[in-house]
């Protein structure tokens, strides 16, 4: 022993009293060292263990595996390890945090150290056993916290999905509501042509009866002369002209009905699977204008200032909904007859649509609230305050901007 070595008693004391389990076995698995930590926790004093086979003293040890492990250290002359993460303990030692712990034994990580004797062969394997219980408990708490966070995250994701769903439903209901609002106007728009087509048919019916009278008179007692007399009587020249006019007018009326029904159908399509498609926004504006014409024509003249715009990828039925909201708002803002201007154009690689009116304008203090859901300045029953909020979401979905 060199002079620099610590006194042997000190070394013995430290090995014995260190707060680490230390024991050693020889090649026969006989225990040759058993420190205080091991004695305290196992309840086996060194006197009862030293000189005896480790596995006879502790039959509960996983013998096959552990013996192989120790033998490998003898053979390979190299360290071996166990970790509490995979194998919580070698020895079942009660730990001193039974209440707060939530683990049932001291959690142990072990190092198996080859101890060479004279020459190169390993004479003993020394095992040091470290108490990792605090780490394990902390680790457990951390895992719990992480699991909680993950659960919360999943819950939040679910809520966001629900919110999106609710928003979609709101959008659909707003649309249905505006279709309801429009229904009266559209009915009126249909009623008008149907009305005059109907009265045209009354006239046409009379004209046809007159024509029958002329033709029937040919077979009558006065023959050709009789027919000519009746033709005179019914003012055939006027009748001939009027029939053509009535037919044309009726056809126009029916076309109008057909178009408005078509537009209404386009407009009101509440797509369950909304299909993104290329569409021309001017066509969308025209369709919507047509459907809303009854709300607008009594209040405003419509001016179109369409620029050249390319088709864009969009959900046309949803953009129609936006345009309708803006047109109806514009119409509602005009107390006296005014002008509704629809304009379109390109800017950069985007397109813009502007819908302006000559009405009251928006009070500056309301400017940052108009997109809030349920913000309205209109009397109860007239406005729900959802129009612009829904429009805002639709435009956001299109990666666009909507601004007053």
């Amino acid at each position, binding site marked *: 022993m060199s002079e620099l070595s610590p006194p042997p008693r000190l070394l013995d004391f430290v090995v014995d009293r260190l707060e680490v389990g230390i024991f050693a076995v020889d090649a026969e698995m006989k225990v040759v060292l058993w420190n205080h930590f091991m004695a305290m926790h196992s309840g086996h004093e060194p006197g009862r263990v030293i000189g005896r086979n480790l596995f006879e003293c502790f039959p509960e040890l996983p013998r*096959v*595996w*552990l*013996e*192989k*492990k120790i033998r*490998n250290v003898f*053979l*390979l*002359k*190299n*360290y*071996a*390890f*166990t*970790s509490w*993460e*995979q*194998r919580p303990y070698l020895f079942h030692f009660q730990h001193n945090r039974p209440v707060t712990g939530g683990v049932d034994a001291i959690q142990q*990580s072990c*190092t198996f150290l080859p101890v060479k004797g004279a020459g190169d062969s390993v004479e003993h394997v020394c095992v040091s056993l470290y108490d990792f219980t605090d780490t394990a408990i902390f680790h457990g708490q951390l895992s719990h916290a992480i699991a909680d966070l993950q659960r919360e995250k999943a819950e939040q994701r679910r809520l966001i999905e629900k919110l999106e769903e609710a928003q979609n439903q709101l959008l659909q209901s707003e649309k249905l509501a505006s279709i309801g609002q429009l229904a009266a106007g559209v009915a009126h728009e249909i009623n008008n042509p149907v009305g005059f087509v109907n009265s045209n048919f009354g006239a046409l019916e009379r004209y046809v009866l007159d024509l029958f009278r002329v033709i029937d008179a040919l077979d009558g007692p006065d023959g050709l002369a009789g027919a000519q007399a009746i033709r005179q009587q019914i003012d055939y020249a006027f009748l001939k002209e009027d029939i053509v006019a009535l037919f044309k007018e009726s056809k126009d009326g029916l076309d109008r009905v057909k178009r408005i029904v078509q537009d209404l159908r386009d407009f009101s399509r509440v797509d369950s699977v909304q299909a993104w498609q290329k569409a021309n926004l001017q066509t969308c504006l025209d369709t919507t204008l047509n459907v809303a014409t009854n709300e607008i024509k009594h209040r405003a003249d419509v001016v179109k200032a369409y620029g050249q715009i390319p088709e864009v990828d969009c959900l046309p039925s949803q953009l129609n909904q936006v345009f309708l909201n803006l047109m109806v708002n514009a119409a509602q803002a005009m107390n006296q007859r005014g002008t509704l201007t629809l304009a379109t154009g390109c800017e950069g690689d985007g397109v813009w649509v502007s819908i302006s009116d000559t009405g009251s304008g928006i009070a500056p203090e309301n400017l940052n609230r108009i997109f809030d859901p349920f913000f309205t300045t209109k009397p109860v029953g007239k406005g729900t305050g959802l129009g612009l909020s829904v429009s805002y979401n639709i435009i956001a979905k299109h990666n666009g901007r909507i601004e007053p």
Partner: protein
Amino acid sequence: MLTDDRKEALQEIANIGMGQAGASIAQVLGEFVQLSIPRILIVPPAEVPTTLARTVEESTVSAVRQAFYSDMRGEALVIFGQHRCNDLADLIGYEADLDHAAEVELLLDLSNILVGACLGGIAEQLNLAIGFSAPSLMADAIPLSRLLQDNPVPWTAALLVEVDFSLEKRSFACNLVILMPEAEIERLMRAVDLFLESL
């Protein structure tokens, strides 16, 4: 840094070291182990992943890292394929059915044996002291491409010593990679120089 002389010497040392390692591992496992001749090269860390990708055949890998210290300092990686080393369980004293913890423990255990034997072999040739930290799981069945993405090598240069292991009678293969930072490579080279002088 890796002159031809040094490389040759290091190769020789590694060959002998691995030979000894193979013999002692065979003793431990009770079966004949095949080791490839170690491939030695110095690469910038950025190239470590591509270099590994060339030699590791499996696309899903598990990996264990183990640090070594003292006269040689660095990290050893042992890279296993999809079947890890479950087929060797009984050779290391495990019962048939492995749960996840036992699978990982086996992985760590076997890695420790391989790393200890191989590095111990090299250190012994060079008369260097070497110690080992406990091995830890670095990758638990992840794509190979993510292995070093998630665990980048922070050094300016890495000495790669690659060895492939396989067992004749069992389906098992793995790659051992020794990584050392630049300063440590220089230290190792000086030890190689000393070794050459002592011949």
